[in-house]
């Protein structure tokens, strides 16, 4: 391909730059024709997906990619580093964003009437922020991208339900600001002791100053800050409202990605800025995290049972699922870590599919109360089948992605000798059955009052295609989990835990 050689070395930075520029061009495109932004976003997301895929393949084949911004050498200049961890997360982001962008066409038109152009502009900037957070190797640059993604997320949520959406957005803003400020403070502390902002450089310097209380304080600030960002119980208060009242498309995007990137950041800071030995043994941070996560798993599931709004229920389920990821990380052994990382991918697929389904049902019927879903199985067979598959996946039925992560997490807990976590995981899957099965009962066994009038009335094709693809992937990776595990997650877990292999450099 002509010109590809010219672009190839800049692919890492293009992951961030493409959505950024596309985002700023969106208003112009929308000014030309109001139907165009959708095509524009899909195109941009497709390009990003290709780049992210290419990045990950390059990393798998030939190791970590380093990109010096403006040609400045690290640790002085900003450096973008793509290793297995963020290459993997980037691909998840790009893929989910691509799916959601296809889906968004009709949904956005209906739920954010007249504001499609700004919606898409902000959509792209959100992806920019998430990509930047993931890809950067500079700790302050990370903070900037964190704020970009937060600000855009506030805007997206505020476009949702009249009134409620704005209040949810405001509450999120306050919590998000606290979190970001804590992170900023932590960065300041680390800078004060190490005098560098480059993550890899910092990791080299830090072990020499571990006695300093400042380092401990920094770690604590980071953990609290990220806990707010991922919605780890009991710092989850912003999350249910935000997920519930955002437009369906934004809910899917935020639920699928924001918390994943937060979890990624937590992993990166624990194992890529601090050293594994420090967080696991010296400070016992992973242990604390594991217990907090176990609590989140149970509380999230129990609260989900109490909900009648499907999106709110899914939001509480997210709180519990984030617990799965962090429990795996907190177990801090090989298998647990694999489970946590695998669940990053798995949960993104499942939860995104579920939120898309909730959006499609809302689009067609205007219903979000799950007790009113009666007879939907006849009206929207494809959508409800996707729901069935994704929900079974959440429950952890074998043959779906949920099972593979559950397997690893349970096994990891046994390996760590933490039997109580095994019970937590198993209990949670029972609770998942409780809150999903009542929806199944309503969809397929419930009798609406006017049973004769149910006609097939499916969501439009642009909505169905991404949902079906996600559902298929939920099953595909349930059987073929070998591939992500073997190529990415196993070497990655080894590197993260410092058992061999290299994470970056």
């Amino acid at each position, binding site marked *: 391909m002509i010109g590809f050689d010219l672009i190839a070395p800049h692919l890492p930075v293009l992951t961030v730059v493409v959505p950024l520029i596309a985002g700023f061009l969106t208003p112009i495109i929308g000014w030309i024709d109001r139907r165009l932004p959708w095509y524009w976003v899909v195109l941009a997301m497709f390009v990003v997906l290709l780049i992210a895929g290419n990045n990950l393949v390059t990393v798998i084949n030939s190791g970590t990619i380093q990109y010096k911004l403006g040609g400045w050498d690290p640790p002085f200049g900003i450096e973008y580093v793509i290793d297995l961890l963020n290459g993997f997360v980037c691909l998840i982001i790009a893929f989910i964003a691509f799916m959601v962008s296809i889906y968004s066409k009709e949904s956005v038109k209906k739920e954010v009437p007249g504001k499609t152009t700004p919606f898409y502009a902000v959509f792209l900037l959100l992806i920019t922020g998430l990509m930047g957070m993931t890809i950067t190797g500079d700790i302050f640059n990370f903070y900037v991208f964190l704020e970009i993604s937060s600000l855009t997320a506030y805007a997206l949520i505020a476009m949702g339900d009249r009134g409620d959406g704005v209040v949810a957005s405001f509450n999120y803003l306050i919590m998000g600001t606290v979190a970001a400020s804590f992170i900023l403070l932590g960065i300041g502390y680390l800078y004060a002791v190490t005098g560098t902002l480059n993550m890899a450089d910092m990791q080299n310097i830090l072990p020499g100053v571990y006695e300093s209380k400042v380092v401990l304080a920094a770690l604590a600030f980071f953990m609290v800050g990220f806990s707010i960002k991922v919605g780890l119980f009991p710092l989850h208060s912003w999350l249910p409202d935000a997920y519930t009242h955002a437009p369906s498309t934004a809910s899917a995007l935020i639920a699928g990605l924001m918390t994943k990137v937060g979890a990624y950041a937590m992993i990166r800071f624990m194992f890529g800025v601090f050293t594994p030995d420090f967080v696991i043994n010296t400070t016992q941070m992973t242990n604390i995290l594991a217990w907090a996560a176990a609590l989140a798993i149970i509380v999230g599931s129990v609260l989900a049972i109490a909900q009648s709004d499907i999106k709110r229920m899914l939001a509480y389920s997210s709180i519990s699922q984030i617990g799965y990821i962090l429990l795996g990380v907190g177990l801090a052994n090989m298998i647990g870590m694999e489970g946590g990382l695998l669940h990053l991918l798995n949960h993104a697929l499942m939860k995104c599919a579920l939120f898309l389904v909730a959006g499609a049902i809302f689009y067609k019927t205007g219903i979000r109360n799950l007790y009113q879903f009666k007879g939907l199985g006849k009206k929207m067979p494809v959508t409800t089948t996707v729901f069935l598959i994704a929900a079974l996946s959440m429950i952890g*039925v*074998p043959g779906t992605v949920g099972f593979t992560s559950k*397997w690893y997490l349970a096994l990891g807990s046994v390996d760590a000798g933490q039997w109580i976590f095994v019970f937590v995981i198993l209990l949670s899957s*029972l609770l998942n059955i409780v809150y999903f*099965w009542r929806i199944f009962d309503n969809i397929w066994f419930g009798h609406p009052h006017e049973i004769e009038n149910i006609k097939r009335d499916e969501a439009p094709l642009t909505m169905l295609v991404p949902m079906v693809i996600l559902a298929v992937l939920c099953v595909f990776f*349930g059987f073929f989990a070998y591939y992500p595990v073997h190529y990415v997650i196993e070497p990655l877990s080894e590197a993260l835990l410092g058992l061999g292999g290299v994470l970056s450099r």
Partner: protein
Amino acid sequence: MVTEINSITPLLAVLVSMIAAVLILASGKYPNLREGWTFVAAFIKFGLVISMLPLILKGDVITYTVVEMLPDIPIAFKVDAFGILFAITSSFLWIFVTSYSIGYMRSLNEHAQTRYFFCFAIALSSAVGIAFSANLVTLFLFYELLTISTYPLVAHNETPEAISSGRKYLTYLMIAGVSLLFAIVVVYHYTGTTEFSFSGIAGMDAIPQTTLVILFVTFMIGCAKAAFMPLHAWLPAAMVAPTPVSALLHAVAVVKAGVFTALRVILYVFGVDLMQDSGIWLYMAYFVSITIILASIYALMQDNLKKRLAYSTVSQLSYIVLGAVLITPHGLTGGMLHIPYHAFMKITLFMCAGALIVTAQKENISEMKGIARQMPITMIAFTVGALGMIGMPPVGGYVTKWFLLLGAAELHSMILIAVLLVSAVLNAAYFFPVIYVAFFKKPDHELKYKEAPLTMLIPLVVTAIISIVIGIWPDAPGMFLDIVEIAVANVTGGGI
């Protein structure tokens, strides 16, 4: 020596009904075509299973690895004598149940028939999948699939009662599933594998005794499909389902999958030696004995015929597990042989009960006075099944009872012998009244001869005849006893 032959046939046998399920769904608007698919799939499936039989009878096993799901954890099939025993039973009976279902569903003009046949086909795939699983994870995959695919069948009526029974069914079986998963994880943790082996998984004996006992208990909770006594409540509750579903639950797939799993765990995970050394077998034997007796007593108290049959199943299933934990070759033979034997007899009984519902609209035994005058063929078939359950020659049941008694006698266990005899008496006590009421009580009003439709009548007559044939000629070449002997030889490492 056991040769392993690599062949895709087991996968095909599992997939046939999955593909059929899709076709059923696609042709939902054309009932004849839809049910045509079911029939075609049933015959192909049985053919595929039977085609593997000659190799198995030679003492070989057939293996096939579908995909490596996770590193070291493949989805794989391995057909051995014990597996094919269950596969033949369920795939053969599917043919009859299909025919019977069509008759039943059409005469009652049931709703949602497409969903019904769809789930039925999936359930059959799962049953055969369980039979052919080469390791615990594959088995768990199909075990859960079976639970999920049978839920819509149990809750088929969509009434609040049906749904609450369905919930009960689901609750029990999902807790079982979780418990089973836990046990599998622990096994994998200690041994690094989940693959079944004739002498038990290597490395199991390294597990400390206490953990081993806990592990065994969680496994047995995981086998709640086998309806051991404290975990049996789902089975009578599931009786709200249409009768062919009950037949499926009791004879073809679900409970048989439960006992099959229990036996797989006892013999192929723990292994005969470990069971004996750890002494678990004795406690398990007493435990299931309690179920045998108690369930029979419960059965006595039921007036609803289907419920009485349900408790009878609970009791009979424990025979199978009892046979397995006796560990002696005769006991094992009796236990394994009871899987197909009980299936044939119980399915006959259930199909008769269903015929009574469809034709005479009678569910309670007290209403069945003189019903034999109206439906003589059905009631004769019922009598055949009942005699088999009691253990009267020439119907099949006596063969397995004989082996079980031999097994108990070898152990000189007076208690177990007594249990078997008392249970036979109790069986008689709850089946003879039904026969007596049906044949000899005077009906309240004049009854005219009116049998169930042929699609229902033929299957139940055929299974009744087979129940007699397997009793008269149990050692026919290639029949169940042959297969069981190979399976027992595999497990014990020698002949009978």
